[in-house]
């Protein structure tokens, strides 16, 4: 059942959505601790997860 969920479109979108929130500590700590690499990871995570949403919605049409 779990596999089925994560293979479905909504399951994939859920991973994207969760990734957006996972990015928060990277962005926050990266900027506050002066560790740009963490901030970059956070920003890339946002772009990839959101880009994936566009792909799922538009690329699959």
């Amino acid at each position, binding site marked *: 059942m779990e596999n089925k969920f994560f293979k479905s479109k909504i399951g994939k979108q859920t991973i994207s959505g969760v990734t957006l929130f996972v990015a928060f500590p990277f962005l926050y700590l990266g900027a506050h601790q002066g560790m*740009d690499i963490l901030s970059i990871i956070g920003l890339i995570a946002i772009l990839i997860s959101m880009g994936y949403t566009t792909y799922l*919605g538009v690329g699959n049409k």
Partner: protein
Amino acid sequence: MDLPINFITWMLSALPIIVLLVLMVRFQWGAAEATPIALAIVFTTAFLVFKAPINLVALESAKGIWNALIVLIVIWPAIFIYEVTHEAGAFEVFKNGMQKFSPNELLQVIAIGWVFVSFLQGVTGFGVPVAVGAPLLTGIGLVPLWAVVIPLLGHAWANTFGTLSVAWQALIFQTGITDVGLINSIALWAASFLWIFNVITGLSISWFYGKKEAVKKGLPAVLIISTIHGGGQLVLSQINQTVANFVMTCIALGVIFLLGKTKWYNQPWSIKNSRIMDRSKTVTTESTNPNEMNIHQAFTPYYALTLITLTILLIQPIKRFLGQLKFSFSFIETSTGYGVVNKAVDSYSAFSPLTHAGVFLLVAAFIGFFYFRSIKHIGKNRLGTIFMRTVEKTVPSTIAVVGLIVMSKVMGGTGQIEILAVGTANAMKGSYALVAPLVGVLGSFMTSSNMASNILFGKFQMTTASILNVPVETFLGAQTAGGAIGNTISPGNVILGTTTAGILGQEGKVLKTILPIAIASALFIGVILFVYLMIIQ
């Protein structure tokens, strides 16, 4: 600050908004699909054009995610309350029950799509009117697209003085005005403009239902309700701005029930080929017989929502006690290469869960769930199914809301929103009054919030008024009225409606319908302001 404000930077700042609108309106992409493209443009221009360092973009993005979470805490339970109500088959009961309130179909639409959602804006806000109003309207038989359009329009006028006046307070706080006479004067202008928009929305809803014939039929209700909504708010805004909207939306809610008993609306009346009604619509129920439930039982979650909200927000000792629990983050100062500074904050956008509309919705949803289960309108072991349906509906809107708010924060933090506003004012010069409300619209469109729009542009409008040597109250009134109008088209609000109405992905169609009304309304207010300023000068 040496922010370059010229045509190129103005165009680059406008580019993400243009791309977003084109993808949604022209190509009919959903907000969840279009937002990432616009966000990628914002990130690119922030680094390459507006000299933003990584830590600035990272922190503005983090602020955006935090703000989005606070908004999403409304969306998630709003969908949940809808799913609980749907599972119980209560929407069919609403449809039948509304016949008893008034057999006049237009009045039913006005009652929910204008009067009830305005009441919800008066007490809650945060998107609740749209999230709750859309499924109620589909429940009485509206085509889902119109079930989203109507509450978006219907609630917007109440944004400035609604939610116990938070957007208004933000405007006054941001501008630093303390002179009571001037504050009342700003309130007078704001309430006058909002009254105009209130009349426009009432007439628009009637027009959508059945063009001239419906406008004629709905005119008594529109005039009476608008006098209470807009006129009453105007009068009360001179006495107590905090409750000016709340009191009048409560009175209007009572009056609409009385109107249903008058000769105008106590006879069956409908327009057979109304484009907003789906005559073939029947609400399917999965496990219950809706005929056994009366309308008051069906309304249980919404009664609970109203009661909880009024109790907590209006009884100050309770509000203060529950409001003690707060969560927030501190943020360090950041600045761009052009000197745009985002000041350090100790407690950014504090979240008080126990006084937040999302928690009221969640509690109301559970009260509804257990009540419906106790009267056997929801079967055993259905909570999991309801929860899964909620997740399916909320995930795409979650992604879009996060993306949109991150986008607006990065644009604001890198000076792009300022470029749009100042650039427009510079280009318009003496004719700026014409577009002053549109600046408010822009702020709300970007942030999904009248309050945020006022925080973004309140000071700017005041400065512009001083430079142009016009009364400051006129531009500030136009600002907040524009901010209220902008809520009709902000993608964040639109998503709330499309999600609860079950048409997620059709945000472009909704925008296409509302955009002309919103822009025309803002311009109309701008023209009135322009003519007034021409006369007095």
